[in-house]
């Protein structure tokens, strides 16, 4: 039982890692007043970026390429949503479609219809001496790939950055009252563009994590809706990095629970397990019973 529990905790943290990257990025984007539902596109692009480069150049370069690929997709979104002030939902939808198609196309032209199989090197777990020996939670928290530690570090870093730097302040002001931000001399469009590209880079990192820390391969559509789940996580985490980190863990736990239940051989429809993360989130939201405060200018088109 303890074994199963340990495995469950490890699974929780592993599953949560890419979600945390993507959701943290999206949280920053939304704090700047933009909702980027093209995030899914950044994730899949990051995954492809990782698989294409890591084979030859190693996992470090793979992660960097994932970052760049995710950012590049986000840049397309920024071009339309910020520069052209086009509707963010339509643009996001199109960018996701574009990225899913483009990654598929590039993947096939790079690897043929045969695919990359499992030839991609992966980041093994990096046990932190001492800490990883703590029973139960030790392996879950301290014997993970480096990407997990990066995600863990990003949470307080993002909190600090938002609260304690002028740039973070400017970002929040853009999301709350862009007109006021502009009056204070902040270039709102530039801030939002930067946020979107950074968010895309983190989305790309999420994709890179899927490939380089987990699957060891690329599959068309392997992002499997994580971009949309990340958006839900942002709301559940109330746009706060810490909240987002915890919400990602909750989602990770719900998914891991689904795997654990099936592994227990419990004879219930498996769809019930699959639906459980979503039902749990709804429950958590209903019980939290507090009003969520979204950035006041979220999704609004800012006229120059």
């Amino acid at each position, binding site marked *: 039982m303890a*074994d*199963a529990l*340990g*495995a*469950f905790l*490890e*699974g929780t943290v*592993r*599953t949560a890692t*890419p979600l945390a990257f993507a959701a943290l990025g999206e949280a920053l984007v939304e704090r700047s007043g933009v909702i980027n539902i093209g995030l899914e596109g950044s994730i899949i692009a990051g995954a492809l970026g990782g698989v294409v480069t890591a084979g030859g150049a190693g996992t470090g370069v793979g992660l960097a390429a994932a970052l760049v690929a995710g950012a590049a997709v986000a840049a397309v979104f920024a071009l339309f949503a910020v520069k052209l002030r086009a509707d963010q939902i339509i643009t996001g939808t199109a960018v996701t479609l574009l990225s899913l198609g483009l990654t*598929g196309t590039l*993947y*096939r032209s790079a*690897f043929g*219809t*045969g*695919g990359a*199989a*499992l030839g991609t090197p*992966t980041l093994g777990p990096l046990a932190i001496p001492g800490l990883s020996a703590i029973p139960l939670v030790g392996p879950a928290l301290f014997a993970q790939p480096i990407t997990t530690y990066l995600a863990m570090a990003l949470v307080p870093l993002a909190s600090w950055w938002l609260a304690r730097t002028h740039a973070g302040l400017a970002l929040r002001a853009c999301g709350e009252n862009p007109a006021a931000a502009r009056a204070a001399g902040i270039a709102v469009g530039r801030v939002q563009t930067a946020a979107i590209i950074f968010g895309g880079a983190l989305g790309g990192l999420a994709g890179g994590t*899927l490939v380089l820390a*987990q*699957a*060891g*391969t690329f*599959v*068309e*559509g*392997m992002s*499997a809706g994580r971009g949309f789940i990340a958006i839900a996580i942002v709301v559940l985490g109330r746009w706060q990095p810490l909240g987002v980190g915890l919400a990602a863990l909750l989602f990770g736990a719900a*998914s*891991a629970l689904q*795997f*654990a239940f*099936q*592994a*227990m*051989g419990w004879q219930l429809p*498996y*769809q019930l397990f*699959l639906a459980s993360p979503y039902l749990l989130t709804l429950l958590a939201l209903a019980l939290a019973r507090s009003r969520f405060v979204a950035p006041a200018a979220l999704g609004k088109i800012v006229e120059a």
Partner: protein
Amino acid sequence: GKGEKPAAAGHDAAKSGIRVALLTPGPISDQAWNGGAYAGLMRIKDSLGAQVSHVQTKSPQDFDENFRQYGSQGYDLVFGHGFEFQEAAARVAKDFPKTIYVTTSGHTVAANLAGMDFAFEEGAYLAGMVAASVSKSGILGCIGGTELPPVKASFKAFELGAKSVNPKAQVLTGYIGNWEDVSAGKEQALAYIARGADVLFQNADAAGLGIIQAARERKVFAVGANADQNGVAPETIIGSVVIDLPHALLTVAREVQEKHFTPRVISLGLKDEVVRWTVNPKLANAVPANITKSVDSVRALLRSGSMHLPVGATSDSSR
């Protein structure tokens, strides 16, 4: 309009070889179910000089429309690759008598409508025998993409095979919920491994790669499916249950080209060498000799038809 033009188009095509179309329900880069069929289409093109066309369908909306379009363009042979295509094929075939519609696993037969049936479970049974013999814990895992009839049937056959070797073997069965999420596949596999499973049979197309990856990392065995996946992780995959889709599709297309195709349910299994159980030569030593022997004898029984597997509600086992 139905069937005004096919005569003319068919006439043209007769000169330049036959025209063959394929509808797949998923991406052809999955190295499994869809990729195999596409390889078949390519082989038809190369071997028969056929003119070919392929569509990946997204939803049932696409079925009728494409069947109809191919019919009206005078295609000679249209494959619907999966059980889900059979009703649409039956609906449309009536209107385009000059086109032959074949659905892999359809059971409706009409003048220009046929079904194909792969006895994938025969291979799965053999895989189960081998899996049980190499398992130390006696716990085996089966992980599918979604719960489809052929997948379910193959898992049942796998279990039967395993229990024939080790009656106490325990087989865990679960589904990922889709065919693409490699990462979820891996997590599912890790959960099974944590429960003690040390051989994993996967039938999850692309997501199956995640299962193999988990097996590789945790140094347990995995079983390949659909295509020969022994090379994907040579130190991990004990063997593969292969459907030789290219061979199967080519056989049908050749019959159509040579104009001796008769509409029927084309059953293909171990005896036709379309379904195979292929042990990974690198790991052949891990399999006890006596098991290899009994696998061979069961294979012979299945091929001769003197043994029948009671899995699923019908003998159908393909998608």
